[in-house]
Protein backbone atom coordinates (compact mmCIF):
# COMPACT_ATOMS: atom_id res chain seq x y z
CA UNK A 1 0.00 0.00 0.00
CA UNK A 2 2.75 2.39 1.06
CA UNK A 3 4.68 1.37 -2.04
CA UNK A 4 1.75 2.26 -4.28
CA UNK A 5 1.19 5.62 -2.55
CA UNK A 6 4.88 6.41 -2.93
CA UNK A 7 4.81 5.41 -6.60
CA UNK A 8 1.88 7.73 -7.33
CA UNK A 9 3.46 10.57 -5.35
CA UNK A 10 6.67 10.29 -7.38
CA UNK A 11 4.62 10.08 -10.58
CA UNK A 12 2.62 13.19 -9.62
CA UNK A 13 5.71 15.28 -8.90
CA UNK A 14 7.70 14.13 -11.90
CA UNK A 15 4.77 14.66 -14.28
CA UNK A 16 4.31 18.23 -13.01
CA UNK A 17 8.02 18.97 -13.45
CA UNK A 18 8.23 17.30 -16.87
CA UNK A 19 5.18 19.24 -17.99
CA UNK A 20 6.24 22.72 -16.86
CA UNK A 21 9.97 22.41 -17.50
CA UNK A 22 9.96 20.48 -20.78
CA UNK A 23 6.61 20.29 -22.54
CA UNK A 24 5.49 23.84 -21.71
CA UNK A 25 8.72 25.00 -23.31
CA UNK A 26 8.16 23.09 -26.56
CA UNK A 27 7.40 25.70 -29.16
CA UNK A 28 6.35 24.76 -32.67
CA UNK A 29 4.49 27.77 -34.00
CA UNK A 30 1.65 27.67 -31.50
CA UNK A 31 0.08 24.51 -32.84
CA UNK A 32 1.76 21.88 -30.68
CA UNK A 33 1.07 22.34 -26.99
CA UNK A 34 1.30 18.82 -25.59
CA UNK A 35 -0.14 18.27 -22.10
CA UNK A 36 1.05 14.92 -20.79
CA UNK A 37 0.52 15.51 -17.07
CA UNK A 38 -2.98 14.00 -17.30
CA UNK A 39 -1.23 10.62 -17.49
CA UNK A 40 -1.52 10.74 -13.70
CA UNK A 41 -5.33 10.78 -13.86
CA UNK A 42 -5.28 8.16 -16.61
CA UNK A 43 -3.18 5.71 -14.58
CA UNK A 44 -4.98 5.93 -11.23
CA UNK A 45 -6.30 2.47 -10.26
CA UNK A 46 -9.90 1.94 -11.29
CA UNK A 47 -10.85 1.16 -7.70
CA UNK A 48 -9.73 4.58 -6.44
CA UNK A 49 -12.68 6.32 -4.71
CA UNK A 50 -14.27 8.79 -7.09
CA UNK A 51 -13.97 11.73 -4.69
CA UNK A 52 -10.23 11.11 -4.46
CA UNK A 53 -9.83 11.01 -8.25
CA UNK A 54 -11.69 14.32 -8.56
CA UNK A 55 -9.78 16.07 -5.79
CA UNK A 56 -6.39 14.82 -7.03
CA UNK A 57 -7.27 15.96 -10.55
CA UNK A 58 -8.18 19.40 -9.24
CA UNK A 59 -4.95 19.74 -7.27
CA UNK A 60 -2.91 18.59 -10.28
CA UNK A 61 -4.59 21.04 -12.64
CA UNK A 62 -4.29 23.82 -10.07
CA UNK A 63 -0.52 23.33 -9.72
CA UNK A 64 -0.07 23.33 -13.49
CA UNK A 65 -2.21 26.50 -13.62
CA UNK A 66 0.02 28.31 -11.16
CA UNK A 67 3.10 27.44 -13.18
CA UNK A 68 1.56 28.57 -16.46
CA UNK A 69 -0.34 31.64 -15.16
CA UNK A 70 -3.69 30.38 -16.37
CA UNK A 71 -5.59 30.01 -13.10
CA UNK A 72 -8.62 27.72 -13.37
CA UNK A 73 -8.18 26.59 -16.97
CA UNK A 74 -6.21 23.40 -16.36
CA UNK A 75 -8.15 22.63 -13.18
CA UNK A 76 -11.47 22.77 -15.04
CA UNK A 77 -10.26 20.52 -17.88
CA UNK A 78 -8.58 17.98 -15.60
CA UNK A 79 -11.54 17.69 -13.21
CA UNK A 80 -13.74 17.16 -16.27
CA UNK A 81 -11.77 14.17 -17.55
CA UNK A 82 -11.46 12.79 -14.01
CA UNK A 83 -15.26 12.71 -13.86
CA UNK A 84 -15.62 11.25 -17.36
CA UNK A 85 -12.99 8.55 -16.79
CA UNK A 86 -15.29 5.70 -15.75
CA UNK A 87 -17.71 6.53 -18.55
CA UNK A 88 -14.89 6.46 -21.12
CA UNK A 89 -13.72 3.11 -19.80
CA UNK A 90 -17.26 1.71 -19.95
CA UNK A 91 -17.63 2.87 -23.57
CA UNK A 92 -14.41 1.33 -24.88
CA UNK A 93 -14.49 -1.95 -22.91
CA UNK A 94 -16.14 -5.17 -23.96
CA UNK A 95 -18.37 -6.75 -21.38
CA UNK A 96 -16.58 -10.08 -21.59
CA UNK A 97 -13.11 -8.70 -20.87
CA UNK A 98 -11.62 -9.24 -17.46
CA UNK A 99 -10.64 -5.77 -16.47
CA UNK A 100 -7.41 -5.23 -14.62
CA UNK A 101 -7.60 -2.70 -11.80
CA UNK A 102 -4.59 -0.83 -13.11
CA UNK A 103 -5.37 0.77 -16.49
CA UNK A 104 -1.80 0.61 -17.80
CA UNK A 105 -0.50 -0.59 -21.15
CA UNK A 106 0.90 -3.91 -19.99
CA UNK A 107 -2.14 -4.92 -18.01
CA UNK A 108 -4.43 -4.39 -21.00
CA UNK A 109 -4.48 -4.76 -24.76
CA UNK A 110 -2.57 -2.16 -26.72
CA UNK A 111 -5.60 -1.11 -28.72
CA UNK A 112 -7.66 -0.70 -25.54
CA UNK A 113 -5.00 1.44 -23.90
CA UNK A 114 -4.49 3.64 -26.96
CA UNK A 115 -8.20 4.32 -27.36
CA UNK A 116 -8.54 5.01 -23.62
CA UNK A 117 -5.67 7.52 -23.77
CA UNK A 118 -6.97 9.04 -27.00
CA UNK A 119 -10.47 9.63 -25.56
CA UNK A 120 -9.12 11.18 -22.37
CA UNK A 121 -6.57 13.40 -24.13
CA UNK A 122 -9.07 14.63 -26.72
CA UNK A 123 -11.70 15.50 -24.10
CA UNK A 124 -9.10 17.28 -21.99
CA UNK A 125 -7.53 19.23 -24.85
CA UNK A 126 -10.90 20.24 -26.32
CA UNK A 127 -12.06 21.81 -23.09
CA UNK A 128 -8.64 23.24 -22.29
CA UNK A 129 -7.95 24.98 -25.59
CA UNK A 130 -11.42 26.50 -25.91
CA UNK A 131 -11.30 27.71 -22.31
CA UNK A 132 -7.88 29.20 -22.94
CA UNK A 133 -8.95 31.05 -26.08
CA UNK A 134 -12.26 31.85 -24.38
CA UNK A 135 -14.12 32.38 -27.65
CA UNK A 136 -15.60 30.31 -30.46
CA UNK A 137 -14.27 32.81 -33.00
CA UNK A 138 -11.56 31.11 -35.09
CA UNK A 139 -13.30 27.86 -34.18
CA UNK A 140 -11.41 25.87 -36.83
CA UNK A 141 -7.97 27.23 -35.96
CA UNK A 142 -8.49 26.21 -32.36
CA UNK A 143 -9.80 22.81 -33.42
CA UNK A 144 -6.69 22.33 -35.53
CA UNK A 145 -4.53 23.15 -32.49
CA UNK A 146 -6.56 20.70 -30.40
CA UNK A 147 -6.06 17.88 -32.90
CA UNK A 148 -2.33 18.43 -33.48
CA UNK A 149 -1.58 18.82 -29.77
CA UNK A 150 -3.71 15.78 -28.90
CA UNK A 151 -1.86 13.64 -31.43
CA UNK A 152 1.44 14.74 -29.93
CA UNK A 153 0.25 14.12 -26.35
CA UNK A 154 -1.14 10.67 -27.22
CA UNK A 155 2.11 9.61 -28.88
CA UNK A 156 4.19 10.84 -25.94
CA UNK A 157 1.94 9.17 -23.36
CA UNK A 158 1.86 5.81 -25.17
CA UNK A 159 5.62 5.88 -25.78
CA UNK A 160 6.23 6.72 -22.12
CA UNK A 161 4.54 3.44 -21.24
CA UNK A 162 7.17 1.55 -23.19
CA UNK A 163 10.12 3.55 -21.90
CA UNK A 164 9.44 4.51 -18.30
CA UNK A 165 6.51 2.63 -16.77
CA UNK A 166 7.68 -0.88 -17.59
CA UNK A 167 6.59 -2.77 -14.52
Amino acid at each position, binding site marked *: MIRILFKYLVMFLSLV*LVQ*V*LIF*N*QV*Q*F*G*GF*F*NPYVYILFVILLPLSTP*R*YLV*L*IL*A*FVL*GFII*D*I*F*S*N*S*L*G*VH*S*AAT*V*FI*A*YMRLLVIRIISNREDDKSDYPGLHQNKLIWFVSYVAFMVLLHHLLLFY*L*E*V*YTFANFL*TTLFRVILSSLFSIIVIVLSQFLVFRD
Partner: protein
Amino acid sequence: MRGLLRFLLKNYAFLLFLLLEVLSFTLIYNFNSYQRSKYLNSSNKVTATIYNSFSAVGNYFSLASVNRKLARENAQLKSLIADLPFIRITPYSIVSKAEITDSLYRFISAKVINNSVDKQDNYITLNKGRKHGVKPDQGIVSSDGVVGVVIHVSESFSLGFSVLNKRWGASAKLKNSGTFGPLAWDGSDSRYANLSGIPFHVELAVGDTVVTSSYSSVFPEGIMIGTVHSIEMPPGDNYYQIQVELAVNFRALSYVDIVENLKKDELKALENRIIK
Protein backbone atom coordinates in the same frame (compact mmCIF):
# COMPACT_ATOMS: atom_id res chain seq x y z
CA MET B 1 -35.87 14.68 3.55
CA ARG B 2 -34.47 11.18 3.71
CA GLY B 3 -35.03 10.85 -0.02
CA LEU B 4 -33.00 13.98 -0.63
CA LEU B 5 -30.21 12.74 1.60
CA ARG B 6 -30.13 9.42 -0.22
CA PHE B 7 -30.03 11.22 -3.54
CA LEU B 8 -27.11 13.39 -2.39
CA LEU B 9 -25.16 10.39 -1.12
CA LYS B 10 -25.76 8.46 -4.30
CA ASN B 11 -24.65 11.29 -6.53
CA TYR B 12 -21.89 12.69 -4.36
CA ALA B 13 -19.34 12.26 -7.17
CA PHE B 14 -21.41 14.37 -9.52
CA LEU B 15 -21.92 17.05 -6.87
CA LEU B 16 -18.22 17.13 -6.06
CA PHE B 17 -17.51 17.37 -9.78
CA LEU B 18 -19.89 20.34 -10.09
CA LEU B 19 -18.37 22.00 -7.05
CA LEU B 20 -14.81 21.70 -8.36
CA GLU B 21 -15.81 22.95 -11.81
CA VAL B 22 -17.59 25.97 -10.31
CA LEU B 23 -14.46 26.63 -8.27
CA SER B 24 -12.29 26.43 -11.40
CA PHE B 25 -14.50 28.79 -13.36
CA THR B 26 -14.57 31.24 -10.45
CA LEU B 27 -10.78 31.17 -10.55
CA ILE B 28 -10.80 31.83 -14.30
CA TYR B 29 -13.06 34.85 -13.87
CA ASN B 30 -11.25 36.25 -10.88
CA PHE B 31 -7.79 35.86 -12.35
CA ASN B 32 -8.89 38.26 -15.05
CA SER B 33 -9.20 41.02 -12.50
CA TYR B 34 -5.62 40.34 -11.36
CA GLN B 35 -6.10 41.85 -7.96
CA ARG B 36 -6.64 38.77 -5.84
CA SER B 37 -4.17 36.44 -7.48
CA LYS B 38 -1.18 37.76 -5.62
CA TYR B 39 0.43 34.38 -4.93
CA LEU B 40 -1.18 32.17 -7.53
CA ASN B 41 1.15 32.95 -10.39
CA SER B 42 4.62 31.97 -11.44
CA SER B 43 6.34 34.80 -9.53
CA ASN B 44 5.68 33.11 -6.18
CA LYS B 45 8.65 31.76 -4.34
CA VAL B 46 8.34 28.02 -5.02
CA THR B 47 7.46 28.26 -8.71
CA ALA B 48 9.98 30.97 -9.48
CA THR B 49 12.77 29.15 -7.67
CA ILE B 50 12.12 26.01 -9.72
CA TYR B 51 12.07 28.00 -12.95
CA ASN B 52 15.16 29.92 -11.86
CA SER B 53 17.30 26.88 -11.17
CA PHE B 54 16.29 25.13 -14.38
CA SER B 55 16.76 28.20 -16.55
CA ALA B 56 20.39 28.16 -15.45
CA VAL B 57 20.84 24.94 -17.45
CA GLY B 58 19.30 26.30 -20.64
CA ASN B 59 21.28 29.51 -20.40
CA TYR B 60 24.51 27.88 -21.45
CA PHE B 61 23.12 27.23 -24.88
CA SER B 62 22.39 30.89 -25.56
CA LEU B 63 25.68 32.30 -24.25
CA ALA B 64 27.13 32.99 -27.69
CA SER B 65 24.19 35.02 -28.94
CA VAL B 66 23.85 36.86 -25.62
CA ASN B 67 27.52 37.82 -25.87
CA ARG B 68 27.07 39.14 -29.39
CA LYS B 69 24.08 41.19 -28.32
CA LEU B 70 25.88 42.60 -25.31
CA ALA B 71 28.87 43.62 -27.40
CA ARG B 72 26.61 45.39 -29.88
CA GLU B 73 24.66 47.13 -27.14
CA ASN B 74 27.91 48.18 -25.46
CA ALA B 75 29.06 49.80 -28.65
CA GLN B 76 25.77 51.67 -28.98
CA LEU B 77 25.92 52.82 -25.37
CA LYS B 78 29.50 54.02 -25.73
CA SER B 79 28.51 56.17 -28.63
CA LEU B 80 25.60 57.59 -26.62
CA ILE B 81 27.42 58.20 -23.38
CA ALA B 82 29.03 61.41 -24.53
CA ASP B 83 25.60 62.99 -24.99
CA LEU B 84 24.31 62.13 -21.56
CA PRO B 85 24.43 65.06 -19.18
CA PHE B 86 23.85 63.06 -16.04
CA ILE B 87 24.55 59.49 -15.08
CA ARG B 88 24.56 57.72 -11.72
CA ILE B 89 25.26 54.09 -11.04
CA THR B 90 23.71 52.19 -8.11
CA PRO B 91 24.22 48.48 -7.32
CA TYR B 92 21.27 47.30 -9.38
CA SER B 93 20.57 50.11 -11.72
CA ILE B 94 21.70 53.04 -13.74
CA VAL B 95 19.87 56.32 -13.51
CA SER B 96 20.12 58.14 -16.76
CA LYS B 97 18.43 60.94 -18.51
CA ALA B 98 16.59 59.73 -21.59
CA GLU B 99 17.60 61.87 -24.50
CA ILE B 100 14.19 62.79 -25.82
CA THR B 101 11.93 63.53 -22.91
CA ASP B 102 12.38 65.20 -19.59
CA SER B 103 11.48 62.25 -17.44
CA LEU B 104 14.07 60.25 -15.60
CA TYR B 105 14.15 56.54 -16.19
CA ARG B 106 15.81 53.87 -14.13
CA PHE B 107 16.84 50.60 -15.77
CA ILE B 108 17.11 47.39 -13.77
CA SER B 109 18.77 44.48 -15.51
CA ALA B 110 16.97 41.15 -15.13
CA LYS B 111 17.16 37.59 -16.40
CA VAL B 112 14.16 35.91 -18.01
CA ILE B 113 13.61 32.66 -16.10
CA ASN B 114 10.39 31.58 -17.78
CA ASN B 115 8.70 32.71 -20.94
CA SER B 116 6.03 31.36 -23.25
CA VAL B 117 5.10 32.38 -26.81
CA ASP B 118 2.52 29.82 -27.88
CA LYS B 119 -0.26 30.40 -25.38
CA GLN B 120 -3.11 32.81 -25.96
CA ASP B 121 -1.84 34.96 -23.11
CA ASN B 122 1.89 34.84 -22.66
CA TYR B 123 3.82 35.81 -19.55
CA ILE B 124 7.44 36.42 -18.62
CA THR B 125 8.90 35.58 -15.23
CA LEU B 126 11.96 37.62 -14.24
CA ASN B 127 14.54 37.10 -11.51
CA LYS B 128 14.27 40.59 -10.01
CA GLY B 129 11.61 41.58 -7.49
CA ARG B 130 10.51 44.03 -4.86
CA LYS B 131 13.83 44.10 -3.05
CA HIS B 132 15.52 45.21 -6.26
CA GLY B 133 13.04 48.05 -6.72
CA VAL B 134 10.69 46.42 -9.22
CA LYS B 135 7.05 47.53 -9.01
CA PRO B 136 3.94 46.70 -11.04
CA ASP B 137 3.39 48.79 -14.20
CA GLN B 138 7.05 49.13 -15.03
CA GLY B 139 8.03 48.45 -18.62
CA ILE B 140 10.24 45.57 -19.77
CA VAL B 141 12.60 46.18 -22.69
CA SER B 142 15.46 44.27 -24.24
CA SER B 143 18.27 45.58 -26.39
CA ASP B 144 16.06 44.85 -29.43
CA GLY B 145 12.94 46.65 -28.24
CA VAL B 146 9.77 46.48 -26.17
CA VAL B 147 9.13 43.17 -24.40
CA GLY B 148 6.25 43.76 -21.97
CA VAL B 149 5.13 45.21 -18.67
CA VAL B 150 5.42 44.03 -15.04
CA ILE B 151 2.14 43.06 -13.37
CA HIS B 152 3.15 41.23 -10.21
CA VAL B 153 6.15 41.34 -7.93
CA SER B 154 7.19 39.06 -5.12
CA GLU B 155 10.18 39.55 -2.86
CA SER B 156 12.79 38.57 -5.43
CA PHE B 157 10.88 37.68 -8.61
CA SER B 158 8.41 39.39 -10.88
CA LEU B 159 5.84 38.43 -13.48
CA GLY B 160 4.98 40.42 -16.57
CA PHE B 161 2.67 40.46 -19.57
CA SER B 162 4.68 40.07 -22.75
CA VAL B 163 3.64 41.90 -25.90
CA LEU B 164 2.22 38.51 -26.89
CA ASN B 165 -0.68 38.84 -24.46
CA LYS B 166 -4.16 39.82 -25.47
CA ARG B 167 -4.81 41.53 -22.15
CA TRP B 168 -2.23 44.21 -22.72
CA GLY B 169 -1.19 46.47 -25.58
CA ALA B 170 1.54 49.08 -25.84
CA SER B 171 0.91 52.60 -27.09
CA ALA B 172 2.80 52.80 -30.38
CA LYS B 173 3.50 55.36 -33.05
CA LEU B 174 4.94 55.50 -36.53
CA LYS B 175 8.38 57.04 -36.34
CA ASN B 176 8.09 58.93 -39.62
CA SER B 177 4.74 60.63 -39.19
CA GLY B 178 4.34 60.55 -35.41
CA THR B 179 0.81 59.15 -35.73
CA PHE B 180 -0.01 56.95 -32.78
CA GLY B 181 -2.30 54.00 -32.15
CA PRO B 182 -2.66 50.96 -29.91
CA LEU B 183 -0.59 47.87 -30.59
CA ALA B 184 -2.35 44.56 -29.94
CA TRP B 185 -1.56 40.90 -30.40
CA ASP B 186 -4.17 38.62 -31.97
CA GLY B 187 -2.95 35.37 -30.46
CA SER B 188 -1.74 33.66 -33.61
CA ASP B 189 1.90 34.32 -34.55
CA SER B 190 4.64 35.30 -32.12
CA ARG B 191 6.46 37.32 -34.77
CA TYR B 192 3.68 39.78 -35.57
CA ALA B 193 1.35 42.19 -33.77
CA ASN B 194 -1.32 44.54 -35.11
CA LEU B 195 -1.31 48.31 -35.06
CA SER B 196 -4.69 49.99 -35.39
CA GLY B 197 -6.03 53.52 -35.22
CA ILE B 198 -3.87 54.95 -38.03
CA PRO B 199 -6.22 56.87 -40.39
CA PHE B 200 -6.05 56.52 -44.19
CA HIS B 201 -4.61 59.99 -44.83
CA VAL B 202 -1.34 59.11 -43.12
CA GLU B 203 1.33 58.08 -45.61
CA LEU B 204 3.15 54.92 -44.73
CA ALA B 205 5.08 52.15 -46.42
CA VAL B 206 6.15 48.59 -45.67
CA GLY B 207 9.34 48.70 -43.62
CA ASP B 208 8.47 51.86 -41.66
CA THR B 209 9.65 51.85 -38.06
CA VAL B 210 7.15 51.57 -35.20
CA VAL B 211 8.29 52.86 -31.79
CA THR B 212 6.73 53.54 -28.39
CA SER B 213 4.75 56.77 -28.17
CA SER B 214 5.13 59.41 -25.49
CA TYR B 215 1.56 58.91 -24.28
CA SER B 216 2.31 56.11 -21.88
CA SER B 217 4.22 56.53 -18.68
CA VAL B 218 5.47 52.93 -18.90
CA PHE B 219 8.16 53.30 -21.57
CA PRO B 220 10.47 56.11 -22.61
CA GLU B 221 9.47 57.56 -25.95
CA GLY B 222 11.03 56.11 -29.09
CA ILE B 223 11.86 52.57 -27.96
CA MET B 224 11.83 50.19 -30.91
CA ILE B 225 8.75 47.97 -31.33
CA GLY B 226 9.12 46.69 -34.88
CA THR B 227 8.66 47.44 -38.54
CA VAL B 228 5.55 47.58 -40.72
CA HIS B 229 5.16 44.20 -42.39
CA SER B 230 1.91 44.53 -44.31
CA ILE B 231 -0.73 47.21 -44.78
CA GLU B 232 -4.40 46.60 -45.50
CA MET B 233 -7.19 49.10 -46.14
CA PRO B 234 -10.39 47.34 -45.07
CA PRO B 235 -13.33 48.60 -47.15
CA GLY B 236 -15.84 50.67 -45.20
CA ASP B 237 -13.31 51.56 -42.54
CA ASN B 238 -11.29 54.69 -41.89
CA TYR B 239 -8.24 53.06 -40.40
CA TYR B 240 -5.47 50.91 -41.78
CA GLN B 241 -4.98 47.37 -40.60
CA ILE B 242 -1.24 47.24 -40.08
CA GLN B 243 0.73 44.12 -39.28
CA VAL B 244 3.93 44.93 -37.41
CA GLU B 245 6.90 42.58 -37.46
CA LEU B 246 8.17 42.66 -33.87
CA ALA B 247 11.81 43.58 -33.34
CA VAL B 248 12.18 41.30 -30.34
CA ASN B 249 12.53 37.57 -30.95
CA PHE B 250 10.35 36.26 -28.12
CA ARG B 251 11.55 32.71 -28.67
CA ALA B 252 15.08 33.70 -27.67
CA LEU B 253 14.69 36.09 -24.75
CA SER B 254 17.46 35.95 -22.18
CA TYR B 255 18.34 39.25 -20.54
CA VAL B 256 16.02 42.25 -20.30
CA ASP B 257 15.83 45.62 -18.57
CA ILE B 258 12.97 46.78 -16.37
CA VAL B 259 12.21 50.47 -16.86
CA GLU B 260 11.01 52.66 -14.04
CA ASN B 261 9.66 56.12 -14.74
CA LEU B 262 10.79 58.08 -11.68
CA LYS B 263 8.32 60.86 -12.31
CA LYS B 264 5.33 58.62 -12.83
CA ASP B 265 3.67 59.39 -9.49
CA GLU B 266 3.91 63.11 -10.09
CA LEU B 267 2.44 62.67 -13.55
CA LYS B 268 -0.42 60.47 -12.30
CA ALA B 269 -1.21 62.91 -9.48
CA LEU B 270 -1.43 65.81 -11.92
CA GLU B 271 -3.60 63.89 -14.36
CA ASN B 272 -5.93 62.70 -11.62
CA ARG B 273 -6.42 66.24 -10.34
CA ILE B 274 -7.57 67.45 -13.73
CA ILE B 275 -9.85 64.49 -14.38
CA LYS B 276 -11.56 64.91 -11.01
